């Protein structure tokens, strides 16, 4: 199996001088083609910073981020823009991530071709994308406020798929959603993973969701990866104390431990 995303010894610092903080320390992991890696951790552990470093929004001090062999961490300017389109991010809040003044079709057309964003020219592709996330073609003419949170998040997924990215980064994409709506979005993701052989970095603080979605798990704690392995190994036989504490803390439907 080929590796789509390879992160090696990523170091990120925030701030300068005395207030400088080492936010990511020697973070390394790999996402193999057609698989999903779950990145879990609590707030401040560096999950979102990792995502931002991968898409090049946050500068890394050291380390490499290889997307199918090309280094994003070292790229600047036009090269960075080209590389960025190969990695797509689905943001957390579907209420903030869609432009309220643009129809779903216009949003998707812009993703397909930012330079010639014509709904008519890309109508076929738009219908195809909407079908991928189980939405009707007539959704194209409607505005985001006409949709539920789950449907909006599906539009956001369709937008990420529009550029046929080599890897998708999903950053807490279900944490703003109600439980029943979350199930709808996770269902769509699961279907896409098998149909499109999607490679994905799935970031979440919700361990139950991560277990449901991912093949491999990396546990971040204070900017370091403390556990990394196959899903069932990590969940059923955690090796690091922190992973154990994390798993014990999740309310699993039984009485509090």
């Amino acid at each position, binding site marked *: 199996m080929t590796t789509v995303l390879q992160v090696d010894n990523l170091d990120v610092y925030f701030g300068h001088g005395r207030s400088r903080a080492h936010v990511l320390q020697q973070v390394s992991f790999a996402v193999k083609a057609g698989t999903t890696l779950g990145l879990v951790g609590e707030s401040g552990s560096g999950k979102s910073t990792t995502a931002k470093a991968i898409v090049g929004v946050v500068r890394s001090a050291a380390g490499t981020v290889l997307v199918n062999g090309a280094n994003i961490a070292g790229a600047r300017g036009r090269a960075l823009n080209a590389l960025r389109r190969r990695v797509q991010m689905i943001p957390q809040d579907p209420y903030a991530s869609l432009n309220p003044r643009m129809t779903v079709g216009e949003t998707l057309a812009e993703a397909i071709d930012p330079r010639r964003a014509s709904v008519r020219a890309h109508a076929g592709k738009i219908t195809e994308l909407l079908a991928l996330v189980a939405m009707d073609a007539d959704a194209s003419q409607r505005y985001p406020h006409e949709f539920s949170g789950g449907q909006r998040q599906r539009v956001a997924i369709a937008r990420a798929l529009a550029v046929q990215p080599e890897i998708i980064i999903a950053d807490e994409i279900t944490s703003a959603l109600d*439980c029943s709506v979350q199930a709808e979005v*996770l269902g769509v993701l699961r279907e896409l993973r098998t149909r499109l052989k999607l490679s994905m970095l799935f970031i979440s603080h919700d361990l*139950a969701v991560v277990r449901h979605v991912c093949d491999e798990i990396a546990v971040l704690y204070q900017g370091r990866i403390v556990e990394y392995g196959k899903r069932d190994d990590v969940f059923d036989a955690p090796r690091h104390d922190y992973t154990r504490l994390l798993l014990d803390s999740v309310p699993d439907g039984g009485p509090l431990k």
Partner: protein
Amino acid sequence: MRRVRWNAPLILGLTATAVLIVIAIIAPWVWGERAEQTDYSATHQSASAAHWFGTDLFGRDVFARTMVATRPTLLMAFAAMLIASVGGIIAGSVIWVSGPRVREIGQRVIDILISYPSVLFALVIAAILQPGAVTSVVAIGLATCPAFARLTTNLAASVATRDFVSTSRLLGVGPLRLLRRHILPNIAEPLLVLMSVAFTISLKALTGLSVLGVGLQAPAYDWGSLLAKGLEGIYVNAWPALGPSIAIVVAGLAGGFIGDGLAAAANPASSRRVPKRTMKAALAAASASVPGAPPLLRGDEVVPAEDVGVVAVRGLSVVMADGTRLVDEVSFTVGEGEIVGVVGESGSGKSLTAMALARLLAEGLRAEANQLSVAGHNLLGRPPREKLAKDIGIVYQDPASSFNPTMKVGSQLTETLRVHGGVSRGKAAARAIEQLTLARVSRPELRIKQHPHELSGGMRQRAMIASALLTSPKLLIADEPTTALDVTVQADVLRLLREANTRDGVTILLISHDIGVVSAICDRVLVMYAGRIAEELSVEDLRAGNARHPYTRALLAATPKVTETSGELAPIPGRPPQPAQRPSGCAFAPRCPLAQDVCVEERPALMRIGTGAAACHALTWQPVGVQ
């Protein structure tokens, strides 16, 4: 696109503007001749039927002249507004697009320009260039530009931080398109408001220039120059000055009204048009006729005084001003020393139910009930406030905003105790330290002297719980107390709540969207859907998955588990109805796999089943139990 929310100022402003525009168009034909006609036998006349605004020193009709002057005046004001808005928006956009350094300098320059009065600026320009219509229009236009530029950069900066802009950037959308498609449409409304205000300001400024003699030059005339001429003879006859003044005031008000109206129309909160409630609350008694059907729990029966535990609620509704019921006829009890969980998705009314119990409903909401007794107080009457504050403790979702950032933790913790409990400062502090220790807050002596921001989120929430427990309340309402916390901290906080319950026997009402959280520490759970209680069940039944209501079952089936690698999750099709559009039947019927005609027609009542209760028609035609 969205519908325009019409309101009185907007209609008034637009009507006045339309009338002025019509006058501007027809005036030269209708009044043109009369305006130039001199009559030396009738100079300096005051208003009469023949001359509505009187006559000037040449005997010309002031009303006719004012009407004729409408066109140049409005055109000049409009042109100035156009220059200001187009120039300002372009300048603002350019500054915003050009990157952080230019933006910083640009904004400072705008700030400096804005601090100069526009008339002064215009006078300087008019002094340099030839005085006249074009000069004054350009001068006023340019002088008003900075206001637009500042608004554009400020608004663009706030929109630019939103997710859809950053996502488009990652997609490779260029800055110009970003501005045109993502930024400008989302800031159009405030800019429109500013445009109508700018029209009024330009009108005022142009009039000022004309009065000073640097505006429109004779023989052409606008309202300003009419006013200037009128002012010369104001002690002889006030009408030549009064007439154009009235026109200026009317036009200025029209612009102002349009601005106010647009601002109100753009603000969804100002909308008074709420859809009327179409449904009627119908207490269904249908299943009572079915032989062997479980007994109903009725909302109109009052719990006898001897059975009232800590909370007894019968038929509680939370109603908006227009009659929409957000919580609809909810009935339940909480016994002494119980932990009862209320679980539901957003909009189910769980938090409103809890806030109604603490008399803390937001303004505009009102609680109605047949019985509402909490901690020994009848909330339908007038319970003493200080007793309520002592007997009901509340823990909110967000520990960051439930503390006042400017007050020390200690004085906030002991406030209720000191104000309502009459306890001295020293004693209250000692009690606070004691409670903080019980809440496992490290170094409590130090913490009470600190400000909230010096505590971590988990510690703040533990301090909040300590604070709520300080008055030994009979009921502790915890509204999503762990939602903002990390999972390890969440476990700590839940442990703390359970300890308070076992140690001091505190009765707890725990509100949560997370079925796992309520399963963890509650004795009994109420499941809410669309403002009503769908099911009440013991925690043992919930943990074992023995739910009776199709909604509870669907919720469980949609929740992934951390303990096992689950297969497909079953999403619930559709979405909950909006409060104003709740059907008269079962609110879950449109999404329910078991729904039949009766579900759409009649609202199911809560029926006792075993140790719990459920509001579902299917229970009367299906064997009661677990499917």
